[in-house]
């Protein structure tokens, strides 16, 4: 009996201890060891970060970088939990971007790097640094820039008799019709993930609204200007042509041959509106697992009568932030990321455009080179609209666009959904 009591008591104590032990996480104990979180959980990207950590360690004897790859979908949630107490959070981490980074800054969870970034970062990345700048202060070191645009199959365009890529939205509508008549799905759309569908709306807003109206609307969450509804109407015109792939509402963006990227990679759809990560995604989905041979790129066409700046782009910038409690080693590490050689390796490993301008010579992919051309010509690049607006309004916007495309809402409903969401956050 005594033994039983003892065992039970031990169990109770163990439970209590076990539960309290759940708290602690990988906070670095000394100044030379840093923890680093990124989201490249597989393939060459993951290898790149491992290599970078090793070369940093050998360049700075005595330091140690503990690299943790976290699944992209889990990243935001895990970071948010870990940073509840910055002392236990990672020292260097991939930013969440836009409004979310702003919220972390407001909560005192990101270090102000304005005086700490190296001159290399300042000069090489001056065009992308703006994405990591809030209220005139720099909070991160960019590694890549990913503007969006139309990715298309040159073969399918030729087969349908479309010789030139469309320069205006009206051309795009006409070409889409031609492609549809030639027997393929003209446009691949992964509306299950919502954002790929909403990108059509972002771009049309960018073309319809003047840049002042756009900036003010996004900043003040005021969507009363007519151009917001007009953009929805333009998208409705495209939707009425029924040129999207059949069953787009339950199609994902990137997973498998039935996803929108898979449709393009397997020549079942002729084009897709997507960010500059597209070649890397397509590469894994083609029948032979090689880069898509006839892939082409053109910028989102201009809209007649629209007030947006011609050539304006929209895209994302990936950058890395530093924990305010972190040591000098962490600052050295993010500066190390920005060096030309490391940026070149980054571009190769991720098949993307590096943030550092001198490093862009390393890009060999034809379509990515075209993107760089547009990037050089472009007067400005806006952040993805949902990132800029924050997930609260952004998600409502994305879902509302999908709703309209499925025939259950009007262009006015999109604006209303954004205004309603503002009440919840």
């Amino acid at each position: 009996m005594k033994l039983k009591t003892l065992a039970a008591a031990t169990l109770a104590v163990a439970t209590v201890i076990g539960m309290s032990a759940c708290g602690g996480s990988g906070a670095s104990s000394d100044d030379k060891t840093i923890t680093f979180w990124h989201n490249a959980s597989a393939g060459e990207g993951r290898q790149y970060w491992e290599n970078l950590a090793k070369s940093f360690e050998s360049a700075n004897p005595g330091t140690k970088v503990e690299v943790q790859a976290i699944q992209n979908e889990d990243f935001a949630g895990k970071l948010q939990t870990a940073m509840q107490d910055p002392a236990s959070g990672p020292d260097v981490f991939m930013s969440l971007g836009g409004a979310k980074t702003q919220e972390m800054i407001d909560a005192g969870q990101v270090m102000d790097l304005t005086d700490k970034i190296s001159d290399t970062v300042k000069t090489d990345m001056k065009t992308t640094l703006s994405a990591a700048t809030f209220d005139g202060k720099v909070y991160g070191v960019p590694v890549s820039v990913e503007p969006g645009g139309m990715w298309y199959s040159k073969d399918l365009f030729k087969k349908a008799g479309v010789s030139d890529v469309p320069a205006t939205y009206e051309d795009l509508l006409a070409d889409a019709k031609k492609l549809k008549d030639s027997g393929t799905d003209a446009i691949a759309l992964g509306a299950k993930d919502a954002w790929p569908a909403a990108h059509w709306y972002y771009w049309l807003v960018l073309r319809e609204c003047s840049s002042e109206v756009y900036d003010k609307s996004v900043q003040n969450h005021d969507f009363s200007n007519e151009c917001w509804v007009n953009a929805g109407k333009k998208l409705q015109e495209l939707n009425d042509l029924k040129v999207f792939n059949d069953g787009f509402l339950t199609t994902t963006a990137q997973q498998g041959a039935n996803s929108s990227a898979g449709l393009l990679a397997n020549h079942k759809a002729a084009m897709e509106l997507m960010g500059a990560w597209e070649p890397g995604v397509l590469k894994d989905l083609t029948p032979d697992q090689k880069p898509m041979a006839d892939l082409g790129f053109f910028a989102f066409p201009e809209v007649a009568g629209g007030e947006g700046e011609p050539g304006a782009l929209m895209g994302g910038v990936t950058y890395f932030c530093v924990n305010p409690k972190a040591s000098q080693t962490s600052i050295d590490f993010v500066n190390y990321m920005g060096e030309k050689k490391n940026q070149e390796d980054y571009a190769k490993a991720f098949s993307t455009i590096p943030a550092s301008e001198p490093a862009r010579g390393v890009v060999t992919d034809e379509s990515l080179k075209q993107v760089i051309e547009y990037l050089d010509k472009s007067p400005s690049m806006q952040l993805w609209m949902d990132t800029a607006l924050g997930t609260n309004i952004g998600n409502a916007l994305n879902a509302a666009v999908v709703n309209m495309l499925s025939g259950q809402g009007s262009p006015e409903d999109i604006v209303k959904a954004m205004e309603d969401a503002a009440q919840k956050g």
Partner: protein
Amino acid sequence: MTEMNDAVAVGRPVAETKKRGGERKPSNGKGRRNLEIFILSAPAIILFCCFVILPIILGAYYGFYQWKGFGTPSENGKFVGLQNYIVALKDPNFQQAILHTFEIVIGSLVIQGPLAILFALLLNQKFKGRGLIRTLIFVPYVVSEVIVGTGWSLLLQKKGAVNQILESLGMHGVDWLANPKVAIWTLLLLISWKYIGFAVILMLAGMQSIPEELYEAAKVDGAGFWQIQKSITLPLLAPTLRIWVFLSMIGSLQLFDLVYIIWGQYVSTTAGVSTMATYMVREGRGAGNYGYGSAVALIIFVISLIVALTYQHFVLNRDLDGALTDKKAFKKRKKRQTAEDEALAVAMEGVK
């Protein structure tokens, strides 16, 4: 009646003997027993408090703030009182989600209940291959939701396998997943397919605990198969049925995974299959509105609690008496049991 009283009368002296036995060493026995109760229940109580009670209290607290999940609500959030709750209850999307959830609660009961009883009746008979069919019916319940969801979402695509089979048969398939008029029925069908195995197993177990003598007696009295089922199986299966209804309702109220996997986090509202839980995840975690999400979670908790308590009070308590309630209820149960015994007797009369 008299029999029952006798049973209780016999029961009492036994209890008193025990007590008297304890009086010999009162301090020792009682103290040890309390200690044992304390130690043995401590882990469960601690877990319950940490992972059920505390989160509810914290959720209620967060629900009063507009808070993005960074820092603490009092520092980085804005106190808004009941606004989150009002916005949620007024949001047509949430009202839709509640409606869908209750459609699923009722739909699964109506579809699965009769089917499960029929299947159980069938599988309770002796025939060749019974073991195989029993296993096959139970298989979907064992398969993980993620696999079921992914599999069916591929099969039911507009150009998926199901529609292609229908086409080769000369029929026109519908858009099973995306058409808002069809999607909720697709979901109900999938849920029934997935969870009917559980219901059947429960019913089978219930049927097997019915004494064989009753059936034999009924047969001797010349009752037909359906009459036997109606007058013996169904009434005596009632406790199992009541528990199954309760479990099914709770499961339906919390339905999340299948919807989330098949329709993703954005399309469920458009397709008309959003549930309370998918709404909470989309508007709370997905949108980064942790304050608002907590308010929604609390509303869901209250709704589920009301449903569960109502059901328990009016239907389930006859099965749970004694386990949950006090002596007064014991008397009540005694009364009811007598009534049931009488009903059973009458039923037997009916069979005769």
